[in-house]
């Protein structure tokens, strides 16, 4: 059984508009790139445990359309649509990403680098403004709301 906890997914907000997700994989870049861009592979891993990727379209060329749909147990499905802008296999893809109203449309920059057979994937999700980014991720909640959330948890506990 392969070691699974060797690499961790990190989430950072290095600028006002960006959310960056970084992860290392024990596989060559070509394979990791295909896994991220081909519908032959994506339904086999993309989405949390229990979710099913029921629709996968990725026309991997500039102007090509993207459409992914997931269904999840006990919940509504989620559809992501977008358009590829820049496609440079196996190192870089720039595309748009929309989760539908009310989420702001974001630009997705996928970058892959390989060192000694390990591939680092850096996914930058760039929002049109800090407000849009914070609204989407609620990173702005961290400063003012941390205490609030702890109390909110207590409060929610008293309601049930």
């Amino acid at each position, binding site marked *: 059984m392969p070691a699974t906890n060797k690499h961790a997914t990190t989430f950072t907000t290095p600028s006002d508009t960006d959310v960056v997700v970084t992860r290392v994989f024990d*596989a060559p870049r070509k394979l990791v790139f295909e*896994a991220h861009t081909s519908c032959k592979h994506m339904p*086999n891993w993309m989405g949390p445990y229990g979710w099913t990727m029921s629709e996968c379209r990725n026309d991997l060329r500039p102007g090509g359309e993207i459409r992914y749909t997931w269904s999840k147990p006990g919940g509504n499905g989620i559809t992501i649509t977008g358009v590829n802008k820049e496609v440079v296999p196996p190192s870089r893809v720039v595309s748009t990403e929309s989760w539908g109203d009310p989420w702001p449309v974001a630009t997705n920059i996928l970058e892959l680098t390989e060192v000694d057979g390990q591939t680092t994937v850096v996914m930058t999700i760039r929002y049109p403004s800090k407000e849009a980014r914070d609204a989407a991720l609620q990173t702005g909640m961290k400063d003012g709301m941390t205490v609030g959330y702890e109390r909110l948890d207590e409060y929610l506990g008293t309601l049930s």
Partner: protein
Amino acid sequence: MEPDQLSLTFAALADPTRRAILARLASGEATVKELSEPFDMSGPAVSKHLRVLERAGLIARGRDAQWRPCRLEAAPLKEVAEWASDFRQFWDESHKRLDFYLAQLNAKERRKNARHK
């Protein structure tokens, strides 16, 4: 929640003063006067923020005509908090699945290469 309601919630949360007001209300109800003091803002300025928060369903106001104390309404915030943690969970779990999947693909490649030698 209807998408329109969620939009209102996000718009209301985009402002740091309104988030600070919510954080204050998380420790108990407060009047406009009590809220304007720590934020060094006029009553009307605070009232304007409170109207946005009320429209977004994030606070409710008492019926007492003179004081109308504000209190936090938790449901829309919970929805937003769940989404933020969903984003992390989505990629955390997807990447763990991808570790296994890549290991399978790698093994398949190796078997194929071994056969061709």
